[in-house]
């Protein structure tokens, strides 16, 4: 599935400029933007694929330069991959990923959060689905209590059924961050 491609430097005719939220400009090959439905639709609407059209920089106000670099790295790696098709993944219990993907997504939770939001914004289905699967793999085989720890969910049940002791309410609006507990994707032994 993996395809190693010769690196081609983008030329003004076949690239567009995107501007991150912190003002940094990135040159993107039009071939790469095909993986992003948001960018592909924008290019199609403004006819940026034509050489006689002036290409204004595309502002991406929701994406920082660090996220953009990460996304470009993903797009470059999957440049020659076939078009993404959503498979029926409901019944898959094994979460196996390419080595490159595991290394690519071996990042802290906060960066993963930003990357997932960026992938959602740019509508890159392969990246979006992969991160979702990575996140799902992190809570596979966990009990409700462990899932609460991983995803920082606090129970909002008022009282314990038997004891009647009040249980701490859900503080979803609090400033507590997600736990950085690294739970292994592999399930615990029986």
């Amino acid at each position: 599935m993996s395809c190693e491609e010769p690196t081609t430097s983008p030329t003004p005719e076949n690239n567009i400029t995107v501007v991150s939220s912190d003002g940094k400009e990135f040159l993107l090959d039009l071939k790469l933007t095909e993986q992003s439905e948001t960018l592909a639709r924008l290019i199609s609407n403004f006819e940026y694929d034509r050489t006689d059209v002036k290409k204004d920089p595309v502002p991406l106000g929701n994406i920082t330069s660090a996220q953009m670099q990460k996304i470009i790295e993903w797009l470059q790696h999957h440049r020659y991959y076939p078009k993404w098709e959503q498979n029926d993944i409901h019944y898959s219990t094994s979460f196996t990923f390419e080595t490159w993907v595991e290394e690519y997504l071996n990042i802290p939770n906060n960066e993963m959060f930003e990357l997932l939001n960026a992938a959602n914004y740019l509508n890159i289905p392969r990246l979006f689905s992969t991160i979702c699967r990575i996140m799902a793999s992190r809570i596979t085989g966990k009990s409700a209590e462990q899932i609460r720890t991983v995803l920082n969910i606090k129970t909002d049940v008022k009282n314990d059924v038997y004891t009647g002791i009040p249980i701490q309410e859900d503080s979803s609006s609090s400033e507590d961050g997600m736990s950085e507990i690294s739970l292994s994707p592999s399930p615990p032994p029986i």
Partner: protein
Amino acid sequence: MPMKFFNFPHLVQENILNNMDFSDVFAMSLCSKRSKSCVILSTIKVPKLWHIVKENKQSVKIEDDAGILKTVFKLKEFSEVEKAIKLKFGEYFLREIFNFCTYPIYFHGDNCYDVIRESDGKRASILSRSAFFRMVTEPTDPSLSPVCTNCLDGVIAIKNTIAKIANFARITIGTTVDKVCNHLVPEFDFLEAICHIIDQNVEDKVYRFLMAIHDKINENVICHMLSFCPK
């Protein structure tokens, strides 16, 4: 920047849930009310649900389109003496052992699920919490039966009702009988206790029975009202 599941857009939450196994989605729904509603809103398709009951084990499984059964959870009784069971969550996750209570437990809450068998109307309640999992079946409790038309059933229904009141009010059955028969309202809020039980567990006929006691209607009227006697 902190990362929290509920900070994601709903589409992202839904996609993550769709990537999870059914047992994990089920466990996710037990985390909180909000996570439960999130699971419901994600509209995960369940092709076919199986509730398999064997001699010493019960399991809930989901059959996919290919006919493969995926275990959501399994309860297995492994010690008849201690009444202990094991809970298997998903395909590979085994919860800790705990004592299985055989006496009636009346519970309520968001993590309580009442199920009714269509064939004979028998009921059971399932309670799942983070620390334990319990299933209570009440096959011999006529007060929960949809039909209660003879004297024997009526006697058992009244007996069970008295037991429930005694259990709720934390007094002995003998004291409860005395209080009910004498139509007394003692130091605790007896009517509140009755209403609490009515809301949770008591069928309509027993409810009317209790109201009849409250209104000091004599036993003949009660018997007629509850259809305990053939005439």
